[in-house]
């Protein structure tokens, strides 16, 4: 043991706790040191020796976990409150699945497509307010990104985790690999990170969850080289709540005073409400504010996935319009938690209108429109303070008088509005093919009062908006504002997973169904998700065709729908569903609707999903066209192969 390296190795072994002090002294004596010299050496190195036995106990909210990186990941996800893992597997993630074998607190939810998986998690997050975790393979990232765009636009909290190639293979452009993989997701995530060691996995997962779930929320993307998942180590797992931020920011008293003053001085104020009302659970307060002032509430057509105000209330007008006939001459617009109307190079708010905005999202606050008063705050707190301030600045008698005057006007308008909607529906009641208005009214009659509609149906979004009743004691509604199609079917699964005791309806068009494909039905069938799936089948991208034709270009002149007809092949959605062991039926005539919906309701009560292939009318320009540019690859062949 006279070799210098051997002595260094001995000392390292002692310092790292590989051998005891007694063994260290014995070995030093064996190489010729006196007992006094050996004791002296041991004393010199004593301060550097790791002292496992002297480690302080951890507090109750933390625990030390040993195991693979996969095990640490699962343990941290548990500590972060995850009950479900949304998974499409990769072999590199084997240590995660191994760790789940003996884990009873987390349920795997599998989808056979990463995009559908993210949409399922998105629906789950919207229905619960939780931050779901999605685990995918690295070649599945582009698939997942299709629906991450929707999650990003809707501020949906979500963790998306993948396994990268092993450390040894990084930066080699090898199998299923690309450089800076996480940066692919940069523009649609709040944070993206590549985990540097197994020991860091719990810490980075906690941080990712913190970023994803701190309002304004959004998706976070994490990648970990696969060898980190299999490396055995030890790390602290800490309860997520120690890193949670409520973000209940109270607005300043001065801002609230100024806002109240502006609103009270207005002749025709108007409220634009948005999804931040839902995120802050401020629906009740919004209703109170609107009724206190008799102020109408609108939303922007492209900026809202949730319902924040009862749509049958006389003060609800639907979609914002800068030049609406009623309420007209708006002089103060109060934006409570909404993206603003599309502007482009021309603002859609009249220049004389004073704009007051309250948003959680400081980045998007006063982003486009010149704003008189910008307030970053929790919407619930801001509205509560605003109500109090308005009451202090004005007498209750005056408030009541003004509110009643406005409310009476609103009731007249609303009544006429309802009459005109009903009159249109009546005229289309027996249309063959079926009108969307009839389908929606039949649903209004037959569905549970508090059912949940999940839809990314663009063509029929207006009837769905106008004919169904939404509100705190009525139906609820989930949409998305990214408009990446293929979201509706898988998102409804996620909503049902979150709300098993609610009647859930997936109301999709044939176009949107085909974007997700039937793949989500695999999860419906595997996990017995009793959802009523209605495919509004008109064999067309109906809105797209109408927008193309509205240009009055060559397509319109010649009557040629070049791209929007979806027939030939006439997709059989009932057969598609049957392929996944999901029952369904075709509804081809208006008289069949009622009984078919009842059968779907019964099937879901019995615990099964049920699909209705609803043959609805195409509307607008070239609605009758089935022509499409024909091409046959078979006909181009020179060999019959």
């Amino acid at each position, binding site marked *: 043991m006279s070799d210098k390296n051997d002595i260094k190795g001995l000392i390292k072994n002692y310092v790292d706790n590989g051998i005891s002090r007694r063994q260290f002294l014995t070995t030093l004596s064996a190489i010729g040191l006196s007992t006094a010299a050996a004791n002296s050496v041991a004393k010199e190195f004593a301060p550097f020796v790791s002292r496992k036995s002297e480690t302080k106990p951890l507090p109750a909210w933390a625990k030390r976990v040993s195991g693979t990186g996969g095990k640490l990941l699962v343990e941290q996800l548990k500590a972060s409150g995850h009950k479900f893992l949304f998974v499409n597997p990769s072999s590199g993630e084997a240590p995660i699945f191994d760790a789940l074998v003996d884990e009873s607190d987390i349920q795997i939810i599998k989808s056979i497509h990463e995009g559908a998986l993210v949409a399922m998690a998105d629906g789950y997050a919207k229905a619960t307010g939780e931050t779901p975790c999605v685990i995918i393979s690295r070649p599945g990232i582009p698939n997942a990104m299709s629906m991450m765009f929707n999650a990003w636009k809707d501020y949906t909290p979500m963790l998306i985790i993948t396994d990268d190639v092993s450390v040894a293979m990084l930066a080699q452009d090898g199998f299923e690999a690309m450089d800076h993989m996480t940066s692919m997701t940069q523009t649609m995530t709040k944070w993206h990170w590549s985990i540097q060691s197994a020991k860091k996995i719990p810490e980075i997962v906690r941080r990712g969850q913190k970023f994803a779930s701190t309002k304004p929320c959004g998706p976070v993307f994490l990648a970990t080289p696969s060898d980190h998942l299999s490396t055995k180590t030890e790390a602290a797992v800490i309860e997520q709540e120690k890193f949670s931020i409520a973000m209940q920011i109270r607005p300043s008293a001065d801002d609230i005073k100024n806002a109240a003053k502006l609103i009270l001085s207005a002749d025709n104020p108007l409220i634009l409400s948005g999804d931040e009302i839902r995120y802050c659970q401020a629906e009740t307060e919004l209703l109170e504010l609107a009724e206190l002032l008799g102020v109408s509430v609108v939303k922007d*057509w492209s900026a809202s996935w949730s319902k924040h105000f009862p749509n049958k209330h006389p003060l609800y007008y639907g979609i914002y*319009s800068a030049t609406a006939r009623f309420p007209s001459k708006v002089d103060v617009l109060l934006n409570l938690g909404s993206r603003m109307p599309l502007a482009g190079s021309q603002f859609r708010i009249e220049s004389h209108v004073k704009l007051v905005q309250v948003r959680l999202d400081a980045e998007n606050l006063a982003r486009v429109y010149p704003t008189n008063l910008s307030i970053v705050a929790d919407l619930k707190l801001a509205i509560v303070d605003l109500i109090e301030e308005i009451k202090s600045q004005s007498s209750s008698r005056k408030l009541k008088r003004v509110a009643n005057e406005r409310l009476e006007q609103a009731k007249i308008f609303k009544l*006429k509005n309802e009459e*005109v*909607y009903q009159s249109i529906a009546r005229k289309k009641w027996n249309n063959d093919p079926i009108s969307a208005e009839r389908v929606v009214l039949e649903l209004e009659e037959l569905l549970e009062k508090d059912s949940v509609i999940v839809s990314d149906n663009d063509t029929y979004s207006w009837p769905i908006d106008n004919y169904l009743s939404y509100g705190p004691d009525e139906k609820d509604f989930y949409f998305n504002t990214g408009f990446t199609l293929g979201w509706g079917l898988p998102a409804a699964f996620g909503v049902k997973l979150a709300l098993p005791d609610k009647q859930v309806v997936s109301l999709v068009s044939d176009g949107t169904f085909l974007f997700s494909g039937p793949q989500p039905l695999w999860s419906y069938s595997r996990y017995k998700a009793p959802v009523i799936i209605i495919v509004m089948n008109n064999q067309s991208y109906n809105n797209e065709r109408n927008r193309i034709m509205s240009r009055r270009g060559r397509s319109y002149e*010649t009557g040629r729908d070049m791209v929007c007809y979806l027939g030939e092949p006439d997709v059989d959605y009932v057969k598609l569903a049957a392929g996944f062991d999901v029952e369904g039926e075709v509804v081809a005539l208006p008289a069949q609707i009622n009984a078919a919906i009842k059968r779907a309701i019964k099937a879901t009560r019995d615990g099964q999903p049920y699909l209705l292939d609803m043959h609805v009318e195409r509307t607008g320009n070239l609605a*009758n066209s089935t*022509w499409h540019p024909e091409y046959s690859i078979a006909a181009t062949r020179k060999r019959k192969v």
Partner: protein
Amino acid sequence: MKNSSAYKLVVRTTCLFILLSAGFSSVRADENAGRRLYEAACVQCHGLAQIEQTRNGRAGWEDTVHKMVITGAQLDIEEMELVIDYLYQQHGPDASDPMRTGVLPFDSPLSKDGLISSENIVLPDAKGKNLIEGYCMMCHDLGRVVATRRGDKEWRGYVKDMLRRNSMNISDDQLNTMVSYLKQNFGK
């Protein structure tokens, strides 16, 4: 009045004049109201050019206005009818100013010998030609008819919808004749 017949004639003429004047004023008033409502409700979301390039029967305009009201155009029932009437009056079937196709696509049935403008189309002689010319050209030129080969079911759908939108009642025989003509000459 000594001459009661003359008196009656004067009274009747006066009443008729008053009634006609009132009716005329009423029509004008409705037309003005319809125009104002059309301009107010439709420009909330879009320009008017696409509407003004279109020809449609009353039922056709009713389809359009219904869709727009569901989409957010703020009109009550009476106002909606005024706008439909206005659009029908201003942009209804008009054989003297139909929607125009221009040059036919290279692969249209009549473009075998080179490109042809829709203004120069001569339909093949056969039973049904007169019906096609009579009905179809009320809204659009013949380019729309001959630009594209369509299947039997598609032609039938087009003709039925065209007649419905224009509130035209024809016999089943006439309908079948039109479809048969279109299928024979411009079918797939």
